[in-house]
């Protein structure tokens, strides 16, 4: 049987997994490349494994939510990402959903808070 710490860690990862897309879309309202995006998320308290971040960025781009371009900066070419028009719209809808979920959870757990 898994110990309480392992169990909590699994639940925490599950909980965070769904919110990462929202965090990435939110952070990319401003143009960023992979490394700075990861730092931004890290600074905001949502660290993401780089092995997961780059495939996620590609998936979101393939879904039309992000656009990217290779550009030179600090003597190296980097791939810059930003939100597309569809991405902006999707982010607004997801944020609305996120707030609704958050309010529901608060209502359900306010006695315990």
């Amino acid at each position, binding site marked *: 049987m898994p110990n309480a710490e392992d169990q909590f860690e699994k639940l925490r990862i599950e909980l965070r997994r769904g919110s990462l897309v929202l965090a990435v879309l939110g952070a990319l309202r401003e143009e960023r*490349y*992979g*490394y700075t995006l*990861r730092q931004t998320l890290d600074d905001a308290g949502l660290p993401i*494994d*780089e*092995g*997961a971040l*780059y*495939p996620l960025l*590609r998936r979101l781009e393939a879904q039309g939510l992000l656009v990217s371009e*290779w550009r030179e900066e600090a003597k*190296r*070419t*980097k*791939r810059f990402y930003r939100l597309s028009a569809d991405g902006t719209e999707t982010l607004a809808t997801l944020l609305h959903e996120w707030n609704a979920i958050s309010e529901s959870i608060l209502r359900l757990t306010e006695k315990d808070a």
Partner: protein
Amino acid sequence: MDLIDRYLTAIARRLPADKATDIVAEIQDDLLSRIEAREEALGRPLDRREVSALIKEMGHPLIVAARYRPAQYLIGPDAFPFFVATLRIVAMFMVLALAVGAGANVIFGHVPLARAFAQSLTGLLSSAMLTFGTVVAIFYALERGGFPADHLRKWRPEELPETRDKQPGAWGSAFEVAVGLYAILWWCGIAPLPILYTNVKGLTLVPDPIWTGLWWPVLALMVARLVYNVVQWLRPRWKMARGVLSVATALGGLALLAVVHQAGHWISMRSATMSAHELLELDRAVNLGLGIAIIVVGVVWVLQCAKELWQLVRAR
């Protein structure tokens, strides 16, 4: 840089060729950015051990590359329960088919029990691996084709078996299917159950011409009965299909039994060592036994058919 190059090459090897350069360039930039940031913080260049640790943080090349592939699993969580259920059915059928085969080998082929068991076990292991692989391949293909989303959209609670219905035991139904299939294989001359029985004091049992004339109708009846057993096992809620198949096979079987019974004689005996009188007595006893067996089978089929009809009427 040697370590980074080796790492990136290992990832690139596992990526689709048309995307590899682009993906690897991005990973390389990330790694170099991290090294630069670390070096800036430390105020000195990183040594080989530190670079190695940093690369390791990025993840194993196989896992990093796999994350860029569209398929992350063979069988997804939605299809998995269907996969397990299918595997269970196939495994049950396989075990029983091999058990029936071993039993037939022992009884009719005079193979020692231990050898028949060992043969079946060997057969079971190889068949199990092949079957498992085949089921996985089928589900992999089905999942890529949209299963089970379509099935989950179409299913209706009304299709579930009624609670008052007695469900036939899965092992019993699987056994009937295995026996039915083996009987068909034997009737077609594929399975080793000899139609000419030639092992007792030179005695040979020769089926009468009536059986040759009824070969196709008997085969049709066996196939229909197999279909009935499969439906009863895997789709017990198809009551109408079960009822129709049961009545049809019972009526067909009764008609066949009537024709067979009218013949009055079904098996002839030949022996080089037994006297004509002994042969005649044996012939009479065997055919009398067969005659009674035909009547008993007929009565059982009539009762089964009546029971099925009654259940069908009660369910409406």
